[in-house]
């Protein structure tokens, strides 16, 4: 198998894993904290805590996790088949 595909397969699995984590975070905070009666809610920045953690914090946390995943675990690979030709193209540009 093309060694680039090994990298690609692993990265696809990481993407799926992150999506699963994302779902768990989103669900657990939303229904864990939001499931109780509204008058017992806590508030952060004026927003109900369930909403703050699930949607606002979740948005920032997962944006950062995507950054970390891509920067540290995703590998650069060439897409073209012959590396020489690609170098040539880059030079011409």
């Amino acid at each position, binding site marked *: 198998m*093309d060694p680039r595909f090994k990298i690609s397969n692993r990265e*696809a699995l990481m993407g799926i894993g992150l*999506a699963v984590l994302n779902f768990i975070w989103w*669900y657990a905070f939303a229904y864990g904290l939001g499931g109780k009666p509204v008058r017992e809610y806590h508030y952060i920045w004026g927003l109900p805590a369930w909403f703050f953690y699930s949607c606002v914090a979740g*948005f920032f946390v997962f944006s950062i996790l995507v950054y970390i995943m*891509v920067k540290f675990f995703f590998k650069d690979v*060439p897409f073209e*088949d012959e590396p020489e030709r690609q170098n040539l193209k880059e030079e011409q540009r």
Partner: protein
Amino acid sequence: MNWEVVIPLLAFLIGMFVVGIYTSRQVQSGSGFLQDYFLGGRHLGGFVLALTMVATYGSASSFIGGPGIAYKLGLGWVLLAMAQLVTGYFTLAVLGKKFAIVARKIDAVTLIDFLKARYENKWVVIFSAASISIFLFSATAAQWVGGGRLIESFTGVSYPVALLIFSFSVLVYVIAGGFRAVVITDTLMGIVMFIGTLVILAGTIIAGGGVPHIISTLAAENPNLISPYGADKSLTPMYVSSFWLLVGVGVVGLPQISVRAMSYRNSKAMHQAMIIGTFVVGFIMLGMHLTGVFARVVIPGVDIGDKVMPMLALKVLPGWLAGIVLAAPLAAVMSTVNAILLIVSSSIVKDIFINYIKPEASQQSIKRLSFSVTAIIGILVFIMALNPPDLLIWLNLFSFGGLEAAFIWPVVLGLYWRRGNAAGAVGSIVTGVLSYILLDTFAPNMWGMHTVVLPVVLSLAAYILLSLVSKNSPQSSLVKQGII
């Protein structure tokens, strides 16, 4: 007519126009017309790729329809909308490098090129081209109605005139510039969408007297507005979770999104696009839907959800700024429309005409055909949008769910599962489309889930089962050569 609002809008339309004409020169002079016209020569950088995906994906519903429902149902609907955060990274991570490498090896320009090379089967091509053309055509028409209505509401001109302005500007730059024009204008539109979100959210919070005040006013009106269950308690966890499939991970199956995963320049561009795309999608979805909820305090008592955002913009912002912000939904509609337009014309020209009708067509005649097919589709959509027939509305209802159910497995498993074959793909496409339409008509929201869930499961079963049963049929040469 409110000139203060109309002038920024007009400036926006004219700007798109100019970009379309300008980029068309690049297409004319470049070599490899098809690659260029339909894929922008596979040279997209990360920032452009991210914003073009955001703009294509964010449609009228992100700016007009969705916030309108959030206005009615409260924070529960924002929770549901946040399922879209995953689309920013999931699609690119899953299709990833493999799709880009394989697409280059086989010189694929459209999703169907890939399916054709992978499965080497006439029926896979015909069924896919047919479902893409029919569903996306209907989806486009619905978006054009939205674009026409938007222009109508800002300018006060009659609907047919508004629609004509809209169609004319979209068509000119799509026909002239092709994919490159589309992605460049998409990038501008993505920026407009992002800034529009920021401005209107801030304006609404200020007009509502700060977040704590807005939330307590909402809770006093109806506590369920700030619960995850929706004002009328209609949003069950099961239902809301099932949207992860419709608007989150299932988006991998949408042709107008997956084709973008063929177009990046290199792996660095893809990495960048994942980071930027996730942030921008999340920001727009959170900001716009939250604005819709907050609007309830600022402009109470709006009956028609679609009017919430335009009314809100006019109320909380100075006129000229409202004009810029209202360009955001227009940008969203236009960029969705032009991407779809290009997909439909590419599947007719490339997938049907060149494959089966005239493989020996010259570069020149392909060029002419591409322009005229795009123009004809545009004009047809315009006529349909003037007075949409029932069939169109009916088909539009099925477009995204139907396409996802049809394509998610032939694409994803075609890429990662060597044993998948043509029988599985045909079965999966047919099962996905039919079961989606049938279930939605006769048994919608089964077990409290969105209708899309079951067809996706059924088409997976069809794909695996039929691939295994017919495992002795000749295997695709892509698999034999070890390309998959």
